[in-house]
């Protein structure tokens, strides 16, 4: 329980916990999905499940972009990096994600040049400094990072940089939530909405969840009390028979989002007809590609991309974890063959993946594992 002891506002958390428990109807089970990997991290780090009554289960959703990228896209990136004159750049999070023939580090050991960068702007600087190389940025992330890629493409166009391009893997959160709502595997009672994505897209895009599916959603901040407060707001909606979009994180998230960011995305990118998500399969209009107006910055047009679909390793159950059907510890290889040091699946690679978060923190704080298996 050492992590729980560090929890700053434990008294306030216990008070919220009592209010949440007071709203539970006897005999009813509640399942809420936290969409964002950052929330998953907080929940395990602070043992928040211990503050909730047994009838409430938190399901970890697909909101970790590193986790949902399919193996084939890693292979494609490595294939691009192997082409003559290419210098690939990537966020550090991606470096250890396994492709079918190894990860980016393995690929570098065999001669490719895949460099870690903090920002797509660093990648653009690498391009300026290496005019004799084709610098490709491995773009990944939801709407939190897509504006940064978009602004970088606009900057490259303005400066007339000829040796910079983007291998675009940006995905959008709404189609993934819809896929989960339409999935027969899982019955959810509500959603803890992503905080930072909502800074960009605002709260309005979630209205279909409340109106068409009749489920409450509360956009939440990342601190332990934010999450407990959001669960209380969800329970209150259920108690009062409401299904609405509410914003617990209004101190950071404006209802309308960031219009400058949305305009930059719309200017430089367009929806793909479909995109494969690890665990969720192919989802229509769920990802972005570089708009044809900016075709000279689109690595998929400049380089050969095999685009071969690669099945996950048989032992890996990331797909079931990402859909919320399995808890991390229910996966056959969790903590044995698959650990953060030697990950088999993506959920163990990213610190925001449900498996890594649980491996690093959750198993120390969890005192009530047994009830959590999903019936």
């Amino acid at each position, binding site marked *: 329980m050492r992590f729980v002891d560090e929890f700053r506002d434990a008294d306030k958390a216990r008070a919220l916990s009592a209010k949440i428990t007071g709203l539970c109807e006897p005999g009813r089970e509640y399942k809420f999905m936290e969409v964002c990997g*950052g929330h998953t991290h907080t929940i395990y780090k602070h043992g928040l499940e211990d503050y909730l009554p047994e009838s409430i289960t938190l399901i970890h959703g697909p909101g970790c972009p590193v986790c949902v990228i399919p193996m084939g896209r890693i292979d494609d990136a490595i294939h691009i990096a192997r082409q003559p004159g290419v210098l690939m750049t990537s966020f*550090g*999070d991606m470096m250890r994600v396994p492709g079918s023939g190894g990860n980016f580090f393995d690929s570098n050991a065999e001669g490719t040049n895949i460099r870690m960068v903090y920002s*797509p*702007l*660093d990648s653009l600087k690498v391009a300026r400094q290496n005019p004799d190389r084709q610098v490709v940025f491995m773009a990944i*992330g939801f709407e939190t990072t897509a504006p940064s890629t978009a602004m970088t493409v606009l900057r490259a166009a303005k400066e007339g940089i000829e040796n910079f391009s983007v291998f675009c893997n940006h995905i959008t959160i709404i189609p993934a939530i819809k896929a989960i709502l339409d999935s027969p595997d899982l019955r959810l009672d509500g959603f803890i909405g992503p905080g930072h994505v909502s800074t960009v897209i605002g709260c309005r895009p979630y209205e279909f969840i409340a109106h068409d599916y009749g489920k409450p959603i509360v956009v939440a901040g990342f601190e332990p009390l934010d999450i407990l407060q959001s669960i209380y707001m969800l329970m209150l909606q259920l108690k009062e028979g409401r299904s609405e979009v509410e914003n617990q994180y209004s*101190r*950071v998230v404006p209802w309308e989002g*960031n219009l400058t960011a949305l305009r930059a995305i719309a200017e430089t990118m367009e929806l793909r007809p479909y995109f494969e998500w690890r665990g969720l399969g192919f989802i229509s209009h769920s990802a972005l590609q570089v708009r044809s107006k900016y075709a000279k910055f689109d690595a998929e047009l400049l380089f050969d991309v095999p685009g071969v679909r690669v099945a996950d390793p048989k032992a890996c159950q990331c797909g079931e974890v990402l859909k919320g059907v399995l808890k991390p510890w229910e996966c056959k290889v969790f903590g044995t063959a698959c650990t953060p040091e030697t990950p088999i699946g993506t959920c163990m690679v990213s610190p925001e993946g449900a498996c890594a978060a649980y491996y690093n923190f959750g198993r120390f704080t969890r005192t009530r594992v047994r009830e959590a298996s999903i019936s």
Partner: protein
Amino acid sequence: MCLGIPGEVIEILTDRPDLARVDVSGVKRAINIGLLADEEVKPGDWVLIHVGFALSKIDEDEAKAAMEFLEGIGKAYDDEIAALRDSQIV
């Protein structure tokens, strides 16, 4: 990569008004503030930074709370700060 990290604006670069020098846990680096074009950003303001771009303005209390939270989560934040330290966008 997914972490939003709070930084305090030190100065707006005179030759590039879309860039600002910020202080994140003592690390001083240039970031892009072009996504806050609709708001006035000035020294002393706090912003939430994602991969080198300020995505929103926040107040000082929120920044302090967010910082305390991030410092508590350990390695993921250390990695983010290390990456920021290596960042040289100008």
